[in-house]
């Protein structure tokens, strides 16, 4: 009998250690998660320049062959064309699912403020400018709210939410002011957890375990309201698991 009890204790300790390891990995991932800025903003394609150059060479060659006297003029015109194309600088394509910030570099950096470019735009870039972006894609957030106080006890609640920056101009502006080019997940997660703690403080633990519909609606409404200030839309939120609070070593 004691053998089984020892095995059970060892298994529980192992599970606890694995849970702590998983939490530390999740924390590390949350802090290091960055927007893949360079994957989003696309530098303007060189196709247009290539096509113009090729067509120019073809037409010039044809004209020069037919009228030899203008050949030197045509050659100079083509060379000039190449020089203009080379000096024209690059442009960036801001896809529909992002907003980009263009920051001047070097001496201009202190004089000129960064410029935010809206989604679905193409803008010309000054030489040497830096570009980063804030993604408008939907982001999944899942985490455990520890030690949540209810009317009759303390619980650990696993939550899941889908959030995304609002698509309207006002929402995008608010998000840009709040997050800049940082990930939106950590702040939205904190806001949603705050909403959850407020909603459940007068609720019995049994109601949470029994999937109380009124509480769900309250949590969704409150979560939406608090994220509204950041320019973030709450697509979905819900609890995945509700269990009795397990004190961590630090608490003990």
């Amino acid at each position: 009998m004691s053998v089984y009890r020892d095995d059970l204790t060892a298994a529980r300790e192992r599970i606890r250690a694995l849970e702590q390891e998983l939490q530390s990995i999740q924390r590390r991932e949350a802090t290091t998660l960055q927007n893949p800025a360079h994957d989003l903003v696309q530098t303007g394609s060189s196709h247009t320049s290539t096509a113009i150059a090729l067509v120019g060479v073809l037409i010039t060659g044809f004209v020069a062959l037919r009228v030899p006297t203008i050949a030197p003029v045509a050659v100079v015109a083509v060379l000039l064309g190449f020089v203009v194309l080379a000096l024209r600088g690059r442009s960036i394509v801001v896809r529909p699912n992002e907003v980009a910030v263009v920051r001047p570099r070097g001496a201009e950096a202190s004089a000129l403020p960064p410029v935010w470019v809206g989604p679905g735009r193409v803008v010309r870039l000054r030489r040497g400018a830096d570009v980063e972006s804030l993604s408008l894609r939907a982001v999944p957030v899942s985490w455990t709210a520890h030690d949540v106080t209810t009317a009759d006890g303390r619980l650990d609640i696993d939550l899941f939410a889908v959030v995304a920056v609002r698509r309207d101009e006002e929402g995008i502006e608010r998000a840009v002011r709040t997050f800049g080019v940082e990930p939106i997940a950590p702040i939205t997660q904190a806001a949603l957890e705050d909403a959850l703690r407020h909603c459940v403080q007068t609720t019995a633990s049994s109601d949470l375990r029994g999937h109380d519909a009124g509480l769900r609606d309250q949590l969704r409404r409150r979560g939406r309201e608090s994220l509204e200030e950041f320019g973030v839309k709450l697509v979905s939120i819900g609890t995945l698991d509700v269990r009795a609070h397990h004190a961590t070593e630090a608490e003990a």
Partner: protein
Amino acid sequence: MIIVIEVLLLALAIFSVLALLYRVRCPPDHALVLTDRSSEGSLRAGPPAYRVLADRSVFRLPSVGSVDVLDLSPARFDAFVPLLDDRGERRGEVHAVAQVRVSRRTVHLRRAAVRVMGMPRRDLDAIGEGSLAVAVRDALGGRSAEHVEQDREEVASDVRAALGTVLDELGMEIVDVQVRLKKRDV
């Protein structure tokens, strides 16, 4: 006569160059997202200038800034949700399977171009599985194991409605939802 042939050959050469450079093929089960060039780039410059085309190849005109692709093939998500009794004891498990995809309706394609395009597979899986699990948990609210077994179609319908609301925001639609109950004998 020679000049006419030369002009025709030149026109053919120019057309071939343009066709080679500007023809964009749309892979099967994909949509093209074309971001147009615009002179105004500020945040308050009106709605984004982009077009979406499903299953169609296009010529990339100089007015188009970039071309991206959006995957329209179905994705499958699984969710396992414990079924608890009134005392919080585990009485079984509900296994839900959902097949979803980006809808081909223009309004949904435009939405998906913002919310889903270029999303890492890990994020898409997390959204699909998490949203399905929340939808199942909501649908099970107040139902006992016996009721879930009896009203399986009704539970699946509730899951479909709850999941559909989330997916609609992302420009996606449900292809199929299946709900299975694994009861634990006590």
